[in-house]
């Protein structure tokens, strides 16, 4: 009898838990799962008034994919996306890792704390703010650097409007904004290193540099490799946020990426089917990358423990 009451009580709590989850479940249904169904738009001559079901099928079904791959611009978009992504990964990892190592070697604690506080901050500023800052420093007419060049009688540099320097600006601003934040994970890894290893190295007469090379870096190698692998999984996302806000039509050749193009084709030119097809292509590649990359990362972690 008591058992029955107890079971009933548990059942009631289980139902309550399920009910509690309903709003969240509905949210995912509407904004994650319904859009997956909406992928059909890529295979239809979609007209927004007719809706997904009533729009006629594209003929052939791969019409919009063909349109994209036959577009001479396609190759450039893919190249830009991958190059910018990889560039950002390389620069960002290098500076995050270096910052983490420098911070971990700092003996003056208050300095360590203040540098951490300062370098994490830009992560929370929006890209529009960063655009304002970049503008104040790098704009051709009134940016600090060009004002200085001009008063020194030297030619100005069009940082924001020439292909080569614009990409550098993308890397640089990404490092400025995110390197401090990225250092957190490496700092945590360094904090987890057995201090005995450093003592042993010191006894062996290793210099501080040698300790970094022989103890710190090898000890956090698993973290570095896992981070690298995970980042490679997101290589198709070159950063719509940053690029859309910073770029302009003069630098499309070097910095128009899949996401910015999809936005312009889809929401500015209202070619919904083509934009959906390209978005789908990107999603599929991303998913394959993320899944395989996770598998590799897991293998790496397993082989280490």
């Amino acid at each position, binding site marked *: 009898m008591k058992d029955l009451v107890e079971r009933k009580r548990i059942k009631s709590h289980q139902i309550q838990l399920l009910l509690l989850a309903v709003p969240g479940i509905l949210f995912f249904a509407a*904004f994650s799962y319904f859009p997956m169904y909406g992928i059909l738009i890529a295979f239809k001559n979609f007209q927004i008034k007719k809706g*997904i079901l009533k729009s006629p099928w594209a003929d052939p079904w791969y019409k919009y994919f063909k349109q994209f791959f036959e577009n001479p611009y396609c190759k450039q978009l893919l190249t830009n996306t991958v190059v910018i992504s990889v560039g950002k990964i390389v620069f960002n990892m290098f500076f995050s890792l270096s910052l983490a190592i420098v911070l971990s070697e700092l003996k003056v604690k208050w300095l360590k704390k203040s540098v951490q506080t300062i370098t994490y901050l830009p992560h*929370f500023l929006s890209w529009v703010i960063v655009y304002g800052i970049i503008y104040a420093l790098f704009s051709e007419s009134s940016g600090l650097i060009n004002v200085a060049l001009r008063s020194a009688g030297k030619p100005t540099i069009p940082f924001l409007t020439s292909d080569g320097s614009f990409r550098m600006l993308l890397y640089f601003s990404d490092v400025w904004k995110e390197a401090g934040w990225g250092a957190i994970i490496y700092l945590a890894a360094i904090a987890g290193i057995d201090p005995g290893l450093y003592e042993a190295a010191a006894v062996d007469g290793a210099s501080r540099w040698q300790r970094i090379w022989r103890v710190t870096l090898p000890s956090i190698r698993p973290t570095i490799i896992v981070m690298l692998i995970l980042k490679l999984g997101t290589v198709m996302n070159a950063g719509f946020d940053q690029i859309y806000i910073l770029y302009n039509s003069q630098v499309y050749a070097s910095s128009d990426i899949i996401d910015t193009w999809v936005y312009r084709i889809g929401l500015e030119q209202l070619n919904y089917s083509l934009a959906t097809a390209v978005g789908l292509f990107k999603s599929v590649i991303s998913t394959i990358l993320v899944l395989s990359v996770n598998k590799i990362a897991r293998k790496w972690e397993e082989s280490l423990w």
Partner: protein
Amino acid sequence: MVKAQKTKTKHKKLEPFDILMIVIASFAALIIIFPLYYVVSLSFSSYTQYIKSSGFVLIPNPISLDGYKQFLTNQAVPRAFLVTIFITVVGTLLNFLFTVTLAYPLSRRELPFRKFLAIYTFLPMIFSGGLIPTFYVVKRLGLMNTVWAMIIPILITTYNLTITRSFFQSIDDAYIEVGRIEGMNEVQILFHVIVPLAKPVIATIILMYGVMHWNTYYHALYYVRSSNLQPLQVVLKGILMKAQSTLEETSLEVTASTQAMKQAAVVITALPVVLVYPFLQKYFTKGMLIGGIKG
């Protein structure tokens, strides 16, 4: 006495290597601070100083508030503030409610269909329908051109859901059992037992969501066309852009009159984030590491 000795030994230990580390770390901090400082300095610069120094204002003298006045009297600005504040307050509250009410059941082993629901909430992280299908949902739900278009599509972010759920999982079952024995229902347990015990993670997600809303830009870009619903970031971008297109080919005078205003706009828009940042910093390292391990 002991303390004095300690600091003495500390100073003795500073080798050239340590000095080098200090120099590099300070340089890194300077790289972050200088652009921020320069923007603040420009925002307080006066028209005459700007002209006199041909745009090279490292120390504003005299300090002028003209830029701020000009920005705050811009017609679109008060409205943009209202929109952004509304999104931030209401949006964050809804984010909190939707995130904890989903994270709590997911953290309980006795939840029916738990495995299915775990996959259900995780899958969207790996595969998404993309921009246009999501846009179509927003349109079909009648959210286009409303403030809700900037709130509802981002009610839950997977990252915040994950860190909340893992924190809830680490709470001792005994607390929940006691609540149940006392006759509390699950809603009461969540809000009177779990949430108070999970303050660090709740603070983290509230601040994260808050900053996300304050910085909102893309959802306005995608879903909001009418100009009186534009949030602050969009208005700021407009101000910066407009100034740019006229600036590139005009004289120093025009530059001077807009430069202080533009940078005042940047400073004011960034200020709330900079002000909550110390609170945010208290929690995020921990939160990020929980997320890093789980995700």
